[in-house]
């Protein structure tokens, strides 16, 4: 259950600079959130730096010896094709963050459209949409994603679509219950009395008031999405032309890195996933606390 007593009527974009300063004051009190933000900036920096790496570090024609343990030339050793693991991990950050963020945006947009429609219109539209949501909630998501990915064929675009279209249920439920409570408020009634149309009310009253919820929720969804991408790629459904943390682990497992004791190849991508997921989770929770202080969840 979600209950907001005083939602901001004007929306969070009002008086940006002062609000931003206030926001930061509140945010930095959350220690986990600050750590998460730091880790996130670090990963983003790594992803950006990887753009300037010479291609010879990561392409399949790499010339170094294969499966070298860490040494002064290759700080994290090399993989089964002689590529530099550190360079691969940085390049993987790019793919994982890109898929994580874009797929989450799709999820959140789909979830918001469904949640707002169900909550605002109610009646049979609500009934049908929520029944569909319930079915999606029950479906084993990894099985569904793997099946869809196998049918569509593995490519970056398809992975984003598949993850995006399976992960919207949580957002839809949150947005629906928030919409239900907002549409009963006096300022919406006033708008109706003044003759505003449905779309006007949704755009000017409902969406600005669910925005802060959606914003924090999106960051939390990104964490889940990164895990999904990793699982999909590990099970061989990733884009074969792109390095991601999941695809690195797929190749590591496939080439028997576990049996060879090549922990320099197995540990870094996994640790990156853990750090990224934790970072997004902490930032999401901190944002939720700061932006939705009066929201009480039972």
């Amino acid at each position, binding site marked *: 259950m979600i209950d907001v007593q005083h939602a901001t009527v004007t929306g969070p974009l009002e008086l940006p600079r002062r609000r931003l300063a206030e926001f930061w004051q509140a945010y930095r009190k959350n220690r986990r959130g600050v750590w998460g933000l730091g880790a996130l900036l670090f990963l983003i920096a790594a992803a950006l730096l990887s753009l300037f790496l010479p291609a010879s570090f990561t392409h399949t024609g790499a010339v170094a010896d294969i499966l070298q343990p860490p040494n002064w030339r290759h700080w994290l050793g090399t993989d089964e094709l002689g590529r530099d693991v550190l360079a691969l991990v940085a390049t993987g950050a790019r793919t994982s963050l890109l898929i994580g963020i874009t797929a989450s945006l799709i999820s959140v947009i789909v979830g918001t459209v469904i949640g707002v429609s169900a909550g605002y219109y109610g009646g049979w539209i609500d009934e049908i949409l929520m*029944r569909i949501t*319930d*079915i999606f*909630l*029950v*479906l*084993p*998501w*990894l*099985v*569904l994603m*793997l*099946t*869809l990915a*196998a*049918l*569509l*064929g593995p490519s970056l675009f398809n992975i984003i679509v598949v993850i995006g279209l399976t992960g919207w249920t949580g957002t839809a439920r949150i947005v629906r219950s928030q919409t239900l409570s907002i549409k009963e408020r006096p300022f919406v009634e006033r708008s109706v009395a003044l003759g505003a149309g449905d779309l006007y009310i949704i755009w000017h009253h409902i969406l600005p008031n669910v925005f802060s919820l959606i914003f924090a929720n999106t960051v939390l969804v990104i*964490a889940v999405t990164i*895990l999904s991408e*990793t*699982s999909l790629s*590990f*099970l*061989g*459904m990733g884009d074969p032309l792109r390095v991601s943390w*999941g695809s690195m*682990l797929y190749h*590591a*497992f496939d080439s028997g*890195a*576990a*049996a060879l*004791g090549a*922990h320099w190849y*197995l540990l870094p991508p*996994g640790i990156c*996933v*853990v750090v990224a*997921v*934790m970072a997004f*989770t902490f930032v999401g929770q901190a944002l939720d606390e700061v932006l939705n202080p009066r929201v009480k969840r*039972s």
Partner: protein
Amino acid sequence: MTFLLSRLPRAIFTIFIILVINFFLFRLMPGANSDRNLVNSPRFSAETKAQLRKTFGLDKPLGTQFLVYLANTARGRLGISFAQKRPVSDIIREKVGPTLLLVGTAEALAIVLGMSLGALAAWRRGTWWDIGAVGFSLTMYSVPTFWLGILMVSMFCVGLRAFPTFGMVVPGEVHASSWLYAMDVIHHMFLPVVTLTLVLLGGYLLIMKESLTGVLAEDYITTARAKGLTDSVILSRHALPNAMLPMVTLIALNLGFLMGGAIEIETVFSWPGLGRLMFESLQSRDFPVLQGIFLIITIMVVLANLLADWLYLVLDPRVKA
């Protein structure tokens, strides 16, 4: 009985939707075993194409094909595997048992451990135990299941040589007694079960902790304390039964995630179950088997959800069927 009458239609409706998705997904998507791929090869003559379409029933309208699919599925006919050239239902039947054994054991362990550790964390709120338990849960939430499995393999199977790396029994071994067979299976399933339990544990722990913390703040707990009841009586009689309800909801919601975990764990440990079969079928694009697995797993999850709903009813008399 009233419970079944109210919930069964919904479950049947869900299963019907799943059948619809299962049929049209595999028929209409690019790359599926559709009309296009099967028949439109330039190597076939026009007559062969017509013959093939007829053999596979592709000449009939889509609606009729769907009805035929429904009828066949109802009779347990799920088609023929591309890779193994055997009926999909036979292949799947062999794999259900091992998966249920693995997943059931891990889920049961995770629920029991998660509840007790979570209860302990709520009871000793603010202590190092509480902080450690929550930190552990958050870490486990972020760890990819398969990666934890690989780490287990490289530590305990390769490093310490304490456990076998693959399968359910030693290949080719003739077991002298069923006791020895059981021991062999336990030896093989130990690590996969531990891995899956660790991954599932965190969620249960957190929910139990949060739920019990809420219950412990209720007035009736203060009353129980005022009556001079001992801690263990308060916990076991008054607090725990009420704190269990959110657990049941989470267990039901977790079932889909559980099957996802099974796919990853079975792949890493080469456990001969549905998950491993799914991985192999994905690699060889064995669509009839994938279609069968999708159906079986979703139906298993829907039925387990029905069971959880019923359990909720038994535990909480306030909920009406």
